[in-house]
């Protein structure tokens, strides 16, 4: 570090060396401090503070701390029923996603077949679709007299669970597939050479190796399912209410902040537990990753192999029956006009919707611009978090701090959107004591979307940074590269692919984000999901048709973005989720 041998200075050599040594130590330290400070400040101002303020109001009565709300809310039978329903729905949704997703991961990441890349993009689309659209797509399929009305699923727990699986299938496929394609296939080959059948290899060799990835996927899915809001309300109504929908009702309809605050704490406990499991499972995944090689094991599908046949069968049924059917139904309905079939509703997308003042295309433009802002913010913040968390400090306290930071930035996935939205209302009139009212600024919508997208960026970039052998950095440093250069030529060079993928996901998620934004004070320019929502609130078959066409536009936009990102992804590098 202090090799300043040949440098001539005016000062005595010893003093110069000491000063440089100090700078050498201080600069990286300052850099790391900044890398921690920026994301912590961002999350502190735009997430922690609003949430603490709104939840705090529920616990403060006339300036005094009042925790009687706990006794009150927790003694209501409905509260416990709602907690039970949340856990039951999340558990069933998670089971479904894992049972269907693992064969999908095998087929999409371990096998080769024509159209595989397109299929990978397609299965990701539901994850980023707004629940408004999914509600329309699912219910019109399941309602009495609908194409699947005969199954009697409308308004049942099964319908909700199916929708939860619809949303989260991609999480399992990607998380498990990411590890599966890297699994060293020689262990499996050895087992086969010793005479084990395909199933036996799967049960005794492959699945145990995948265990941590499956556990990680399951916890993430559980987290998403436990906090699902629109899906549950639209498909099941309050009969199947969850903690999240109950917080929504108590906050927006009753303004019972006390009950909402207690329920928020309950949700935090559930989410915290899920995060602890996620963290543990992920840590194990990452250890396993360091043992594996980038996968070369993809081979053509062999239908005569029972394992392949089952994977193809399960995945075909899932993709066609669960994922494609609602989406196709949406497209078909958007093409139906009062006089038959046609593109009338799509033509209407270009016309300002009489009193909305903007056309759906203009709203799509607003959506894209807002998503760009959100993505840039999410990339900067999430990238810094991933960079910091990817380091393995020598001291235990440092490691705990890093793990804590990691968990902190996952929290936005688990805290109710209405809590964040109402928190913005009470805290963003003068953030940090500054004289700027952010509440009615379009910037706040982008910020809210960024807060949601940050965890996706972290989860995509972090595993790649962690997979870098620390010796690479040491070698670079030994060869004389200053810390900034090491970062650029080692970390950044490797991470840039994952950054491309993260960019796509953050972008797509922002594009469809509706939860947090629907609770914000919105200025004139509506985003596409908002326009869809408004069109659905007006009478007339044309408005309904246009809303469906706008939904298809939104789905196509998100699908296109994911597909582009799928092409950016090179096998072997990229996020595990």
């Amino acid at each position, binding site marked *: 570090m202090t090799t300043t041998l040949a440098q001539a200075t005016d000062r005595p050599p010893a003093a110069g060396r000491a000063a440089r040594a100090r700078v050498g130590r201080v600069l990286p330290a300052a850099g790391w401090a900044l890398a921690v400070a920026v994301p912590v400040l961002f999350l502190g101002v735009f997430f922690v503070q609003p949430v603490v303020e709104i939840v705090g109001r529920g616990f403060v009565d006339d300036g005094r701390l009042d925790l009687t709300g706990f006794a009150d809310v927790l003694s209501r039978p409905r509260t416990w029923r709602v907690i039970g329903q949340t856990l039951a729905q999340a558990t069933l949704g998670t089971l479904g996603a894992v049972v269907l997703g693992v064969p999908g991961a095998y087929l999409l990441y371990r096998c080769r077949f024509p159209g595989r890349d397109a299929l990978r993009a397609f299965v990701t689309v539901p994850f980023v679709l707004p629940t408004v659209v999914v509600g329309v797509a699912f219910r019109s399929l399941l309602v009495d007299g*609908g194409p699947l009305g005969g199954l009697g699923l409308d*308004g049942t727990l099964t319908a909700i669970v199916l929708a939860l699986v619809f949303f989260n299938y991609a999480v399992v496929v990607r998380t498990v597939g990411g590890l599966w394609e890297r699994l060293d296939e020689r262990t499996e080959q050895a087992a086969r050479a010793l005479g084990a059948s395909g199933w036996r290899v799967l049960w005794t060799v492959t699945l145990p190796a995948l265990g941590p990835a499956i556990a990680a996927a399951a916890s993430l899915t559980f987290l998403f399912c436990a906090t699902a809001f629109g899906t549950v309300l639209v498909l099941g109504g309050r009969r199947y209410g969850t903690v999240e929908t109950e917080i929504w009702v108590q906050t*927006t309809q009753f303004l019972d902040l006390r009950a909402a605050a207690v329920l928020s704490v309950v949700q935090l406990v559930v989410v915290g537990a899920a995060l602890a499991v996620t963290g543990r499972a992920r840590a194990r995944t990452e250890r396993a990753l360091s043992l594996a090689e980038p996968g070369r094991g993809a081979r053509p599908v062999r239908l005569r192999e029972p394992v392949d046949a089952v994977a193809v069968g399960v995945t075909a049924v899932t993709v066609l029956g669960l994922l494609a059917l609602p989406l196709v139904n949406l497209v078909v309905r958007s093409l139906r006009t009062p006089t038959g079939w046609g593109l009338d509703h799509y033509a209407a997308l270009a016309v300002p919707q009489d009193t909305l003042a903007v056309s759906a295309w203009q709203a799509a433009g607003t959506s894209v611009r*807002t998503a760009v802002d959100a993505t840039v913010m999410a990339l900067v913040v999430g990238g810094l978090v991933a960079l910091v968390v990817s380091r393995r400090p020598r001291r235990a306290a440092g490691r705990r701090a890093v793990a804590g930071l990691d968990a902190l930035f996952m929290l936005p996935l688990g805290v109710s959107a209405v809590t964040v939205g109402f928190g913005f209302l009470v805290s963003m*009139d003068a953030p940090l004591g500054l004289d700027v009212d952010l509440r009615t600024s379009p910037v706040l919508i982008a910020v809210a979307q960024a807060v949601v997208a940050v965890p996706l960026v972290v989860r995509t970039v972090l595993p790649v940074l962690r997979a870098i052998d620390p010796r690479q950095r040491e070698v670079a440093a030994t060869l004389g590269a200053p810390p900034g250069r090491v970062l650029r030529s080692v970390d950044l060079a490797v991470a840039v692919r994952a950054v491309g993928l993260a960019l796509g996901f953050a972008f797509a998620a922002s594009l469809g984000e509706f939860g947090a934004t629907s609770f914000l004070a919105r200025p004139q320019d509506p985003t596409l999901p908002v326009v869809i*929502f408004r069109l659905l609130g007006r*009478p007339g078959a044309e408005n309904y048709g246009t809303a469906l066409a706008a939904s298809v536009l939104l789905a196509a936009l998100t699908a296109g973005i994911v597909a582009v990102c799928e092409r*950016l992804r090179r096998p072997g590098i990229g996020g595990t989720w």
Partner: protein
Amino acid sequence: MTTPRGTRAALAAATAVAALTACSAVGSAEPAATGTGDGSGGTVTLVTHESFALSEGLLDGFEAESGLSVEVVQQADAGALVNQLVLTKDNPLGDLVFGIDNAFASRALDEGVVVPVDVTAPAVQDAAGYAVPGDDAGALTAVDVGDVCLNVDTAWFAAQGVPAPTTLESLLDPAYRDLLVVPDPVTSSPGLAFLLATVGAFGEDGWVDYWAGLRDNGLQVADGWSEAYYTDFTAGGGDGPRPVVLSYASSPPYTVPEGADAPTTAALLDTCFRQVEYAGVLDGAANPEGAALLLDFLLSDEVQADIPVSMYMYPVSSAVDLPAEWESWAPMADSPFEVAPADVAEHREEWLTTWSDTVIG
């Protein structure tokens, strides 16, 4: 060091995004709406709900005439609107609020969210007819009204050879089993209006039994109006299974088939609850003078005449004409059910909880 193709592509994508930022919402030259105005009379901010809309050019005309520029801030929905205003009353989101309805009016008045102001528009006489009882100072001014009523698919009933129901009581008839869908009063404001209609019709002692009867007769509850109308209703365009839906007295004109001259649905005018939407100047508004001007504008003939077209509500003004198809197919109820706003304010949550226990279980 060689750059793999993919890396270049990723870099290109990142650059493209960075370039796009130049034209993004943050990067645009448009000043961030502060919502508070600068007190100089330059900006007036209207806080309203999701359904607020005016035909193109109307607001521009007001801006040109008054020299004010209007910011519109839209909130989630009518119910949440009042609660958001209560939360932010120390530092209001804008100057004028529009869209507080009679189910929430008392809460807004009790919380002191709005303050009285002088309104000079001629329609103020008509508006006074809808004043909230007890609001003697006139902090809330009625701007439009609407009747929330059950709608029936007359074509469906004709095809079945069954007479359509006409009253609330008739829906308890087993002949109409499994035919009705209504939105949840807890999550939807028309749903709440219909709950109030039943309270008005059957009294505080009878409405619970009525709903128990509806439940036993196969009532379906949807999340919101659009779910009920577009997905469950037979004539909403979604081909749903139920020919009786909760909607508005103004819905039938939108079901006139192309080339026909009569709608395929009708509103049951003996099942209605009248919704009144109010506007008021927010306490602590940065620009109360501008807010008063904007309120006058909302009561002007041009806005009043536009309300049926843009917001599907009836104007309070008696001076403007309704659209022709409304005159023919969307009359208002003669005697809608009523519940005093003060009663609503006092019992709303208790009623909603009782309703949930009875119907949702």
